[in-house]
């Protein structure tokens, strides 16, 4: 098997297993209270971590670039109670604008 296909196979199997972890092992089951209150915090915690890594994440370094402008414009759109698609478009436009200018 070539190296490329080995990567496709191993990463594919690992990802399928990761994505299936919750639904296959816990699916349709009521969680004990203490576990449920930990799991309930996964959404805010992982979303916050995604915001951070996608805004300033680089290859083993913090990168401050025009994505910051996009997130800043997104914050303004969120504060103005814009619907989600508008937030996405405003953020992309601001990122592109700053990238073109700087």
């Amino acid at each position, binding site marked *: 098997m070539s*190296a*490329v296909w*080995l*990567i*496709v196979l191993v*990463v594919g199997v*690992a*990802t*399928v297993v990761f*994505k299936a*972890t*919750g*639904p*296959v*092992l*816990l*699916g*349709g089951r009521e*969680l004990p209270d*203490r576990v449920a*209150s*930990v*799991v309930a*915090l*996964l*959404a*805010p*915690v*992982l*979303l*916050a*971590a*995604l*915001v*951070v*890594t*996608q*805004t300033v*994440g680089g*290859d*083993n370094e913090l990168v401050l670039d*025009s*994505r910051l402008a*996009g*997130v800043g*414009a*997104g914050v303004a*759109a*969120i504060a103005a109670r814009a*619907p*989600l*698609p508008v*937030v*996405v*478009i405003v*953020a*992309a436009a601001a*990122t*592109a604008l700053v*990238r073109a200018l700087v």
Partner: protein
Amino acid sequence: MSSVASASSSRYRDGVRAALAVAATVWFFGASYGLTARSAGMGAVAPLVMSATTFAGSAQFAVTSILGASGGTAAAIAAAVLLNARYAPISISVAQLFQGPRLRRLLESQLIVDESWALSSRGDGRFDRRILLGAGLLLYVSWVGGTAVGVLAGDALGDPRDIGLDGAFPALFLALLVPQLRSPRARAAAVLGGAIALVLIPVTPPGTPIVAASAACLLGLRRRP
């Protein structure tokens, strides 16, 4: 009661519209992935198979950039597996939406991807199954379809970064984070999770910061005041 129902159905419509905007963005990144994977020497078929089975952009891009820089097979696998390890906690957070036979849960769970998961979150720690699976399917088709176009005709398309699409994802996640922050405990956990990720970005391999940040959920073990 009717106002609750209409708030939930308007949130659902908002979710569907947002999924369309995100799907267009994901399509572009899929095309960009197909192009870069092909130029990194992965051929035409392997990137398509990878998009169809792995269905996770950041890990797939990591593999192409490591292969493109003549990095080793083991390094590419390690990076991608680490990047996708976040799907273990993510899938646990939505486990309750999945019922029925094990095989069906396994197949449906493959539609979990950062964006479908985030769009389906209702802001009170609960998730909407219709949005998770609906957006997941739409994004799956966009990602695989984009990859196919990128592999075959990627040169004709520009870099998605030129139109700022890389700045759209963090703003989307932020917009979906805000409604989650109603309780002091959720705010504390989000700040802690974000701080863990920020501190670890420069000192750990990509992927680790998000997985480590999930430790902030342990704040849920504290007794409510």
